[in-house]
């Protein structure tokens, strides 16, 4: 313990970092990264097994036996820093004295109260306290451990719990802000970073006045990266931070995703040795398609196959997916020697019929140009009559092709027709049936970005390469990118990356810059408003609590463990006051 105190005393700039872990590999990695001590917790084990940390509170095993089993085999004596045992006091058949004796006998350097009653509230917590299995028992266990010469690390959430820990004279107090945000298994949060910093500042000032030698730590809730930790620790003058999900689950999730993606990309590159794959790579380059999802590969295969034919094509999808580029890519890929011609049907000054079919002897239409490709963008805006004429033209072309094959005489190749249409327009039947039927053989649907999130990292990396500033995106930043729906598809992603890169002063673009850029890219008022899933969840939670307490505000506030004023503010925020 003295070693930790000395480390902290060497200079206030050196924050202590503890790793709350549950597997040997993470323990060794955390120590290599500079962790000053480790907490062996059942939650850490559940995380690497694929469950949320919260599983630590469920009746899935005897927590003490479970934790001791993996900590002895994988952590104790394998690391050079103190290892503290996560001791549960819930089991009435194991008294605190026994727990401390066992921890000491096994060789742990200390103990911590985890899983803890601090994670419960409401009636359940009351029953826990009534049964004598609540926080007082945990504080007693820690006091006994201190008397036995073990290091003591006390988790607490409230002032009353902090007071218990001060009374027990624990060596280290950790103010917990709840289960961590962030990652695939993020949980709803009660605090923002600013609120957490303010709360820690107030509570640590109480600790310092009552127990000046106690080291103060923060953990959990909204603190998901070093910037968050620094902000909270700096404002609260904390001695350090304990990371659990932030040290194992979140980096592991992202790193495995990224590495797998990289290996997958390598596999694609290797395949490029084959002729077919070289064609796909060429198609991707010409069409400007980035990504490695099955969707993208399927589109490239369709484009390559279609390019080898004269079949008319229909490219559909939401705006912002590069449908026009795909359509135009068919021209070079097909090796046609004529011109690539584009008609923008949405242009009010365009004369589509004359452009396509010509205007008597004065002007040759696109469709008469030999070996050309005629791309019609916003084809849904063509008049039904013109669409019907196009369907007739396609029918005649098909007939001509059939006749040609019979005579075996090679006539000049006419234009290939490529229509670009929005998916929504197709759904509402904007193309006349005759034309739509004729185009089905050559139809390519480009799926929106939200349906293929695995392409988002590749697109983001591609954009950063285009920007050419050598910047990277942090794991948390990728998490936000993957979690976003991208209603504006690729242009929105480009805009977010551009803005985030611009706002980032460091080489790594963090979640803060990505979050800010996404907020800018979406509609005003949406980010953080009642429309978010978390807010919807909170509203449901409030309504449920109000209903359970027959809409009596005093009872509801007590039930939820919040003040009447906070309840009133939340009700007003969610429109529950009318």
């Amino acid at each position, binding site marked *: 313990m003295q070693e930790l105190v000395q480390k902290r005393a060497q200079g206030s700039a050196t924050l202590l970092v503890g790793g709350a872990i549950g597997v040997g590999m993470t323990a060794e990695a955390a120590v290599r990264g500079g962790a000053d001590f480790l907490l062996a917790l059942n939650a850490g084990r*559940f995380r690497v097994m694929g469950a*949320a940390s*919260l599983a630590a509170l469920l*009746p*899935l095993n005897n927590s003490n036996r479970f934790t001791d089993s993996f900590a002895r085999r994988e952590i104790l004596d394998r690391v050079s820093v103190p290892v503290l045992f996560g001791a549960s006091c819930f*089991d009435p058949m194991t008294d605190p004295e026994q727990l401390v004796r066992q921890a000491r006998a096994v060789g742990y350097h200390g103990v911590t109260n985890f899983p803890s009653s601090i*994670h419960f509230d409401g009636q359940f917590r009351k029953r826990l306290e009534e049964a004598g*299995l609540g926080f007082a028992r945990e504080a007693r266990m820690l006091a006994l451990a201190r008397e036995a010469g073990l290091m003591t690390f006390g988790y607490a959430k409230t002032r009353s719990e902090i007071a218990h820990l001060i009374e027990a004279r624990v060596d280290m107090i950790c103010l917990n802000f709840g289960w961590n945000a962030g990652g695939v298994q993020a949980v709803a949060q009660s605090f923002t970073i600013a609120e957490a910093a303010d709360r820690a500042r107030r509570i640590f000032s109480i600790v310092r006045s009552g127990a000046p030698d106690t080291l103060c730590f923060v953990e959990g809730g909204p603190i998901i990266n070093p910037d968050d930790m620094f902000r909270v620790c700096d404002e609260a003058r904390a001695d350090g931070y304990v990371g659990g999900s932030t040290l194992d689950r979140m980096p592991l999730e992202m790193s495995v995703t990224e590495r797998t993606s990289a290996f997958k990309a390598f596999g694609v590159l290797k395949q490029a040795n084959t002729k077919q794959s070289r064609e796909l790579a060429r198609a991707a380059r010409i069409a400007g398609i980035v990504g490695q999802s099955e969707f993208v590969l399927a589109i490239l295969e369709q484009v390559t196959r279609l390019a080898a034919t004269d079949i008319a094509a229909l490219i559909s999808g939401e705006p912002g997916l590069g449908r026009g580029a795909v359509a135009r890519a068919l021209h070079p890929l097909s090796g046609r020697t004529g011109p690539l011609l584009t008609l923008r049907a949405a242009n009010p000054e365009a004369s589509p019929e004359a452009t396509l079919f010509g205007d008597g002897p004065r002007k040759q239409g696109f469709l008469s140009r030999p070996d050309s490709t005629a791309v019609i963008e916003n084809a849904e805006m063509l008049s039904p009559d013109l669409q019907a004429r196009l369907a007739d033209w396609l029918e005649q072309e098909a007939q001509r092709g059939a006749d040609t094959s019979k005579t075996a005489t090679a006539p000049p190749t006419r234009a290939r027709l490529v229509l670009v249409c929005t998916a929504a327009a197709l759904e509402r039947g904007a193309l006349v049936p005759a034309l739509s039927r004729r185009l089905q053989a050559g139809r390519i649907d480009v799926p929106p970005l939200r349906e293929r999130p695995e392409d988002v990292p590749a697109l983001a990396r591609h954009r950063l390469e285009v920007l050419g500033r050598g910047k990277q995106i942090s794991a948390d930043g990728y998490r936000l990118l993957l979690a976003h729906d991208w209603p504006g598809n690729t242009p929105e992603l480009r805009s977010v990356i551009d803005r985030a890169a611009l706002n980032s002063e460091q080489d790594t673009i963090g979640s803060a810059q990505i979050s800010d850029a996404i907020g800018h890219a979406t509609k005003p008022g949406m980010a953080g408003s009642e429309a978010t899933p978390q807010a919807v*969840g909170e509203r449901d939670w409030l309504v449920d609590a109000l209903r359970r307490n027959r809409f009596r505000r005093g009872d509801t506030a007590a039930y*939820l463990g919040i003040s009447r004023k906070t309840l009133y503010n939340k009700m007003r925020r969610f429109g529950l006051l009318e």
Partner: protein
Amino acid sequence: MSNPPVPDQHARQTELLIAAQPRAQAGTAESPERQILAPWMDLLPANQRDLLSLLPVADVNGALFAALGGLEQDVTAPALPDAARPGTIAGLLCVDPFLRVHDVLRLLGAAGISAIANFPTIQVVDGATARVFDSADLGVKREFRILAQFARAGVAITGFATTDDAAERLLEIGVSDLVFHPGLASSDWRARAVAARQAEDCLRTLRPRCQIPLRLFCPDAFGTELDAARALADGLVRYA
């Protein structure tokens, strides 16, 4: 307006017991005596089992699976006819993140069991903790989702509910029995009285909508406070 009659009048007379060990089959072949099998009861002190069955003190599902022969056993062979235990309902912790419905179905099939109960139920955990459990997909929503999966597989469900909302959800899933759970008993008689009153209110609310047996769970620590609610129920559920 009078209450609609309960289809199974026999249910009004019988108690549904929660037991740690499978009991010798009682009742008739057509109407076997039923019990909820909860082997974890043997691992916990009797006076605190409602609380401890939701804490990391014992592996409640592990105890059940071990009592049924273990998930690792060879369950490829069809169950023997004499293995059928039509009256046994397996008490399952549905929010166990490692629970695999397919495996449990095979185990139940091999053990001749065709009914489960969401017991212990995560609904007993309340307040902000309940919301956090739900946001981590370890809460009530998961419990109902798992129950629905079992129901779709043809398993009969005895559904425990702590609120009338939860009861409605269970009815939507298609439970065959509904058990109202009054929550954890407090050592304070006033808190128990409030819980009993809420149980009574909920049973009254549910009665007209419930065409299946509507039972009341009576934890040991509750006493006469539950008398009014008992009178409204078609039967009781208690520890053996």
